[in-house]
């Protein structure tokens, strides 16, 4: 069990109940923005897109109250879209800066929650304000930051499949390309390099020959402004990234609530002392009786809870051979779950993607360029990508598969272990019922390391089968049976259970 990284259940149960008690007491003191609670809310809701001290999907939030008013922030968090539509200049600027990705609205948060979050973000004000924003850095360098951002977008959408900034891929590296070629030449080349070559341009023919005579895709739809933005990006991207990284070295250092151990001990001590008092000092028979009953009930409760937890591996988060982050892939890069888990549509198994599926993208992505943390820096992530190459035998310098390489499969640790006697079919749920993967697997796109989100107990399955209605629209199979069943049960839409999804033999054979 050495590679299993999870808490012992009884201990966890015990601790969590204590923490609950503790929390209850601490809640009384939380008057104006409780940073502890704020951290919790931040991690649960904001951390997917925000860091305290670095850009992620959204801006860094450390000391955000110094830039914006509390009221502005409240209305932004609750409904940023409405704020943008109302014509708020700040709001529009942020929206534009962050590639027009709207922030999720959190209208269900109370003002107290928001105050807590802001208390957390303010906990330690930022020391180096210049490192907080790429745009700010760019501005200080005298570059049109919007143009660079636009260029990056165009680059990622059109060029990144074949070009990198600083290394050869299918085509040449593009960093500082403006130093080598004129903007006009580049415009001609990008829009129709075939015509340029046909015109007898020596440079164009030389590049064509250098890259094995494979012509570059033409992009006649790109406007002058687009190409200029591209050039701006290729010229300044490296500077931007270097700057952004210096900002990252600042590590969040929110003071952990060190009170947990002593508070726990305190509560325990009180309980123990009270027990001793009841039994040995008080001499009150009735109290003794009540205490005994209370102890028995508590023991019974914990024992039962513990026994029911046996074999339930909710939260199971083993250490995997590759620190594959679903957050980076499905979250940040928005890769569809079924791009990799393509079996889920067709088979009972969702399928762990084979290495050749990884290579579809990682042929051209040999380096990690996203946000990093202290434990997981660029070197770490690049090493993890290298593990794919080691498995399949890819030479990332020559960009070829190594001849005669002895491939070795990646031995993932299985997280969701349904027992052999329970039959589960992914395609039934994905293709027929049209369920989202997240329904059972949780917010995988937010997980760096995947853990078992659902208990996968029979009660959990049945619960869902009881309340979920069938997806019968435009499915010829259900046409007749659904009409008859809904008449029989007197309902508009039949649930899975009413269809027979609670019969033993449907899952146990």
């Amino acid at each position, binding site marked *: *069990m050495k*590679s*299993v990284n999870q808490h*012992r*259940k009884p201990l966890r149960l015990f601790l969590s109940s204590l923490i609950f008690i503790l929390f209850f007491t601490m809640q009384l003191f939380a008057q104006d923005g409780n940073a502890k609670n704020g951290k919790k809310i931040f991690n649960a809701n904001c951390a997917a897109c925000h860091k305290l001290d670095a850009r992620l999907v959204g801006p860094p939030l450390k000391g955000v109250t110094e830039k914006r008013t509390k009221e502005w922030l409240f209305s932004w968090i609750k409904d940023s879209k409405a704020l943008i539509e109302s014509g708020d200049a700040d709001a529009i600027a942020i929206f534009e800066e962050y590639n027009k990705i709207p922030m999720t609205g959190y209208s269900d948060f109370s003002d107290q929650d928001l105050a807590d979050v802001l208390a957390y973000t303010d906990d330690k004000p930022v020391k180096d304000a210049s490192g907080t924003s790429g745009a700010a850095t760019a501005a200080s360098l005298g570059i049109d930051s919007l143009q660079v951002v636009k260029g990056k977008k165009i680059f990622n959408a059109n060029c990144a499949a074949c070009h990198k900034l600083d290394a050869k891929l299918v085509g040449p590296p593009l960093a500082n390309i403006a130093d080598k070629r004129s903007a006009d030449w580049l415009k001609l080349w990008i829009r129709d390099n075939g015509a340029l070559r046909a015109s007898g341009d020596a440079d164009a023919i030389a590049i064509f020959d250098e890259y094995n005579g494979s012509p570059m895709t033409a992009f006649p739809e790109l406007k002058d402004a687009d190409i200029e933005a591209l050039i701006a990006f290729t010229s300044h991207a490296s500077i931007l990234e270097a700057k952004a990284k210096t900002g990252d070295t600042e590590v969040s250092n929110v003071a952990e609530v060190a009170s947990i151990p002593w508070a726990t001990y305190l509560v325990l001590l009180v309980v123990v002392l009270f027990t001793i008092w009841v039994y040995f000092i008080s001499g009150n028979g009735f109290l003794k009786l009540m205490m005994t009953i209370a102890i028995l009930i508590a023991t019974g409760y914990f024992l039962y809870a513990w*026994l029911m937890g*046996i*074999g339930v*591996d909710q939260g199971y988060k*083993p250490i995997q051979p590759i620190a594959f982050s679903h957050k980076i892939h499905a979250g940040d890069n928005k890769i569809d779950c079924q791009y990799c888990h393509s*079996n889920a549509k*067709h*088979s*009972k*198994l969702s*399928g*762990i*993607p*084979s*290495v*050749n*599926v990884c290579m579809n993208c990682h042929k051209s992505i040999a380096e990690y360029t996203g946000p990093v943390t202290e434990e997981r820096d660029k070197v770490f992530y690049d090493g993890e990508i290298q593990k794919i190459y080691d*498995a*399949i035998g890819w030479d990332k310098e020559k960009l070829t598969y190594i001849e005669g390489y002895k*491939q*070795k*499969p*990646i*031995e*993932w*640790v*299985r997280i969701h*272990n349904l*027992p*052999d*006697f*329970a*039959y589960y*079919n992914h*395609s*039934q749920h994905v*293709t*027929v019922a049209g369920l989202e993967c997240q329904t059972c697997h949780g917010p995988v796109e937010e997980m760096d390391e995947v853990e078992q989100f659902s208990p996968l107990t029979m009660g959990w399955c049945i619960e869902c089968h009881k309340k979920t209605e069938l997806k019968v629209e*435009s*499915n*010829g*199979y*259900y*046409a007749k*049976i659904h009409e*008859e*069943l809904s008449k*029989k049960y007197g309902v508009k839409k039949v649930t899975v259970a009413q269809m*027979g999804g609670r*019969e*033993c*033999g*449907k899952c*146990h*054979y």
Partner: protein
Amino acid sequence: MASNKKYWKSVEELNENSSIVEKLRQNEFAEDLPTDQFLGDKETLESSSTSRRDFLKYVGFTTAAASLAACEGPVVKSIPYVIKPNEVTPGVADYYATSIADGYDFANVLVKVREGRPIKIEPNKLAKINGTTNARVQASILSLYDNNRLQNPRVKGEPVNWSAFEKGLSSKLNELKANGEAIVFLTGTTASPTTNKLIQDYKAIYANVQHITYDAVSDSGALDAFQAMYGERALPDYDFSKAAVIVSIDADFLADWQGGGFEVGYAKGRVPNHGKMSRHVQFESNMSLTGANADKRYMIKPSEQAQVLLNIYNAITGNGAAKKTSVDAGIQKVVKQLKAAGSNAIVVTGLQDKNAQLVALAINKAIQSKAVDTASPRYVRSGNDSKVVQLVADMKAGKVGALLTVDTNPAYSLVGFADAMKKVKLSVAFAMSEDETASASQYVAAIPHYLESWGDVNIKKGQFGLIQPTIKPLFNTRQFQDVLLNLMGSNQSYYDYLKTYWNSTVLRGKSWNQALHDGIATRAATSVASTPINEDKSIKNKINDVSAASALAASIKGSDLELSLYTKVSMGSGLMANNPWLQELPDPITRTTWDNYLLISRVDAEAKGLKNWTVSNGALNGDKVNVTVNGVTIENVPVFIQPGQAPGSVALALGYGRSKGVNANMNIGVNAYPLYQNFNTHQAVSIKKVEGVHKFACVQLQHTIMGREEEITKETTLAEFVSKPKSEWNTPPHVSQDHQLVGIDKIDLWEKFDDTIGTKFNLSIDLATCTGCAACVISCHAENNVPVVGKKEIRVSRDMHWLRIDRYYTSDMTVEKGKEEGIYGSGGFFEAQTHPSDNPEVAFQPVMCQHCDHAPCETVCPVAATSHGRQGQNHMAYNRCIGTRYCANNCPYKVRRFNWFKYFDNKEFDFNMNNDLGKMVLNPDVVVRSRGVMEKCSMCIQMTQATILKAKKEGRPVKDGEFETACTNACSTGALAFGDVNDPESKITALKEDDRTFKLLEFVGTKPNVFYQLDVRNTNEA
């Protein structure tokens, strides 16, 4: 009326004083729990140092330790492909069409492959002619995962690599060639045009090469006869559906006669259609599967069979006078019927004699039988006895330089062959296991299983099949054809060779990929495939059937006791002796597993003082004898008293007693091949009782239906079926309510189960077309991971077959006969019905879980582990079962099976589920049951659910015919049918409304979802 007949399963049941039968009727689990084994005797128990308190401490500690250990699950790895093949989707099965051609069984099949691993053989329904599977073909999948397979080529017992093997072999062969020594290829029937062509090519290089075909169980007589009459060395094809009268003299054509596969046509004629069905008369000595299905069966000694054939021949052609036999009255009736039917009749014989076969062909020619197809004959047997005999003589004389045996095991099945092999300078065996022949050979080439090979097969003229690999070779094996190509110095692979040959000869412009997809290709019968084995065409049509008849008459020689050697549907010629599924398959007639035995009639057994007896737990014991033929003696052969065995005759199955290349627990039975002298299945024999008791593993008395056998199966005669109303011959059951008889549909303990919405599965079993062949049993085994339990467990009634085929004997004493003889109505009639008739009629009845709507098992389960689904299936949740076995006790059909032990990863049950290789055959969609739970037929719910899911994904209703179970899929005659009875258009709904339909023990009121169509016998003798 059907219930006028008395049915019984075992002679023991007819013994009124048998305490055992009574005990078994009252108590399903006859044996007490073996508590003595673990408690020991009282004395030891008392002197034990472990006190009761210690014991409790240990129990407490282990319980605590076990629950603590249960907190942490094991780490499970999940390892994907590095590069996933496009056609593989983990969790979804692929199907590949291929063919089996192992020298004994030939069929076009489909192979179900999961994650690159074949798990099931199914019939290829695209192949209209040879696309059926018998029990052995179904079981052949398990032989792929046989842990006794050869994993490397060997030279003189040492494993070598292939290049060293081929180099060594090549230089040896060249040496022999230089000396002008003869090189002989000895193969079984390949029926492969490409392999034969390849050997021809080899001959072109090495001049002195012979290719001899050897069939362990030979049909040389029939081949010789056909060649003599029609010029081609082949076997006629028969379509029994075109025959109104079928006369068979010892031809077991529903089993292995002439390669088998005739049951499809036969079954078509067995369902009354507009008042007509075929009439089948069988003359034979031992009770065969075919005889058991016959309308009328005559018992005659083997030596009398030829005379019966001759008498029929004489009567039909008028060529000679009849000689007296014991069944003259029967012959007269048969001849009359044959003459009346004219070209709609057929006569077949299983006599292994050229003249007898010629006479049979002559009869069919004389009546111009439409059922015989001589224009497109079959190539499934091509062994030539005289050449094999000559080869053995040559080998003994040292005239053979090199002997290459290919996938055949003559050292086991041919007397004297092993000795003769020692005189051969170079012996090479191409074999799958270290069998008798391989272990006697210098060079042993490990060849792949047919599911790992390329190849082709020409089963019938114009009908070609391809063999393609369905899995990457498991071991370091190489096909014979590839080795041969390498020896010839060709750099072509056999795949290329095959493709080239097919493109030029078979396909001629048609698509190779299409042929590979279909697994079959047809070509007009006019373009004869060059079958190089037919060399001798000079005697064509010179044959005179009159002289054949007189030669046959002259050859008849009777003796006091005659032996007939036969093959079982399970073991066949013994190729798959290491297959536990087949070893545990109960013989359809004797219901005995894991054995062969000398079948003997009651009369002879009593005369020789031989006995069978049933011991207290219901198991069968028997005496043993020594069997001697021509001075060759086989010792300690168990004796099995078989009703229907002709007095004066005994029978013994071939294919058992394999000693090499099989696991120790499969080395069972006796090898009867030493008695198979001159390739004649009939021999004069003497037997002598010896000391000792043999313990049979016979399921005959097991799972008796609590004394209700009399009412369990139904049959009628054609005359009654046609002329009388249904109520006469298929009376619906009545029960007494308030002293009045009411229909079973009028009274019920339970509320009606709402089954009108959605799918409602029903399974139909037509007893008229069920031949009892047991292919369904093996198919069920493979689909549902049914464990093998071994002989010892079978003996104590712990067999695990979800589907059993009950075999009932019934006397020929009917009401009419009773009235004729004037004993009807008296006690004598009952006596006559229940006296162990020496020539009983036989009824087969497949029984699996009946999936009762009002299931008695469901109501008694204390934990609701078995429950009912709306689709009609009786569910069994193994993980919920606590093993009380109440359900089994309360089941009126005795179809529930209890896991007394853990049958996987258990060295006590060293069968396929105890090794990693054998476990590869397991179906991943069905759970492997653990110890202490009840299991039973699920109506293949994994298959029905998969069909429904497929329809849901495609957004359409399920079409009729889409629903299948493993047993219906394997049934070649269509006796088993499955479908949705809530679909008014479906075939199953029509079957349910059929007049012949009845339900098993319907009066119990269980409302089963399995129903039967009663058997109809054509008793018209005029």
